[in-house]
């Protein structure tokens, strides 16, 4: 296991091992029962194919701007800017707001009830900001620690919970056909495996497709084991209805010690996802900046962005956004925008491969269609689809407007080096 693989895995598993993902996993396994294992397997296969496609060496024609370069080439400069800005900024603002509150309550209710939940959320946010103010490199290294602690905590609970299940494995009910062919399970699994579109947050984290797929496999294995333990210890209906299914399972396995271990997993998972999303947003902005100027964002400019994210999240927490049901819509919308970005990246990769005549198979286009179907399905099967779709459209429109204005005011044009890569300058 190389340092590079650890750094890449730390970034890719940030969302997958977050408390939010564990809630989605717990609720889904509760609703679909053992049938969800098939969805998880399908999701892992599709995500691995997409990851292998996006990290294909043939596609690295834009070494300094891998994500934005491909996307701008395929769908145009302003749409590419709008897509990346909307998805990354919504993710970095709304997911941390929700998850920091979750971590705050976990600490307040399990570890020290005299310490206010919101104060703990603020402390965690400040710690992440300090990491980014020190350096991006440090933030990436500490990310491995956050993800490592979460994995260890989950594995301890799995190891404690699994032996009790072994005698009953033969009686585990087989999934019914309606569950197998339900698209919801597969699309939710695609949502759970997001994160592999993160590209090279630091120079040391150079990892080919095999490393990225390896990280996904680790995440998939943890999901499958945790799902099995959850289903074996807590009834499906209870898991489906709970707002904190992972906490229920941990308490059922090891009592108060289980709750404590899960609290550590929730806190480190929250730190991991907040840090990981800061890195994802800054990496995308850096790649975007390279496309318009020979020089990428300076370290100080990245620090300013991290301060801005933290200030916005802090304001949202202070304004009580966490106590509003709208936050769930914003989080759901941000995740759908992330799926949409992956769909567009698959399209861009497929288009690039066709140009290079290196892939006769329409794999990229099929993956793009599947991810688009997931976005549409997940957007239209919620309680208030209109509000969710409106949120996504507003986010994309604002990002497109800001991008156009920025290009107009600054008169920026694409970096000639990028144009050369596109074959426009010979």
């Amino acid at each position, binding site marked *: 296991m190389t340092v590079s693989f650890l750094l890449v895995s730390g970034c890719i598993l940030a969302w997958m091992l977050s408390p939010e993902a564990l809630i989605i996993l717990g609720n889904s396994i509760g609703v679909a029962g053992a049938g969800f294992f098939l969805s998880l397997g399908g999701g892992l296969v599709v995500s691995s194919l997409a990851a292998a496609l996006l990290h294909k060496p043939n596609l690295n024609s834009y070494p300094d701007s891998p994500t934005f370069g491909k996307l701008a080439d395929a769908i145009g400069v302003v749409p590419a800017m709008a897509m990346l800005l909307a998805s990354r900024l919504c993710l970095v603002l709304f997911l941390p707001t929700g998850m920091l*509150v*979750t971590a705050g*309550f*976990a600490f307040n*209710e399990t570890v020290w009830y005299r310490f206010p939940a919101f104060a703990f959320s603020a402390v965690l946010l400040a710690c992440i900001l300090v990491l980014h103010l020190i350096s991006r490199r440090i933030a990436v290294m500490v990310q491995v620690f956050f993800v490592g602690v979460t994995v260890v905590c989950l594995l301890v609970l799995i190891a404690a919970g699994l032996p009790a299940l072994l005698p009953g494995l033969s009686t585990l009910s087989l999934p019914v056909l309606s569950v197998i062919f339900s698209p919801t399970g597969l699309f939710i699994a695609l949502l759970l495996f997001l994160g592999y579109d993160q590209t090279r947050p630091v120079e040391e984290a150079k990892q080919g497709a095999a490393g990225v797929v390896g990280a996904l496999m680790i995440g998939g294995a943890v999901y499958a084991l945790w799902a099995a333990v959850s289903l074996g210890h807590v009834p499906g209906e209870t898991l489906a209805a709970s707002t904190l299914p992972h*906490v229920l399972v941990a308490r059922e396995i090891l009592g108060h010690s289980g709750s404590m271990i899960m609290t550590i997993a929730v806190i480190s998972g929250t730190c991991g996802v907040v840090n990981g999303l800061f890195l994802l947003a800054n990496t995308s902005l850096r790649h975007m900046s390279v496309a318009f100027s020979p020089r990428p964002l300076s370290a100080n400019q990245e620090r300013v962005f991290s301060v801005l994210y933290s200030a916005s999240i802090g304001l949202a927490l202070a304004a009580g*956004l*966490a106590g509003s049901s709208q936050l769930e819509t914003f989080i759901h919308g941000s995740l759908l925008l992330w799926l949409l970005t992956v769909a567009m990246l698959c399209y861009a990769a497929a288009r690039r491969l066709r140009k290079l005549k290196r892939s006769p198979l329409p794999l990229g286009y099929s993956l793009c269609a599947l991810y688009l179907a997931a976005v549409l399905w997940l957007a239209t099967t919620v309680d208030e689809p209109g509000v969710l779709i409106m949120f996504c459209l507003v986010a994309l429109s604002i990002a497109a407007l800001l991008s156009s204005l920025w290009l107009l005011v600054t008169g920026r044009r694409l970096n000639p080096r990028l144009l050369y890569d596109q074959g426009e300058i010979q």
Partner: protein
Amino acid sequence: MKSMKRLLLWTLAINLFFVASLSAATVGLMDKDTLLEQLDAENLVILDARQGRDWTASTFKIKGAVRFEGRDFSVVDAYPPETTLVLYCA
């Protein structure tokens, strides 16, 4: 004249602030031990006023508590006047 109007408005605002505080002071506070003693009382209803993540992220949920959406307090109308309503918000 203008300054007089401003002064009157300020006085009104300050009075309103204190009147609101006084009316709020008439609502009693119940500590957790008292609530625990009365938990099985027939005319006691606990209204869980927590919204969004304040509720979903908390493992502390009072059994039998009634939840309501947003600021829609119309749920209160369903109970007879002699009911003791306990609002739980944190």
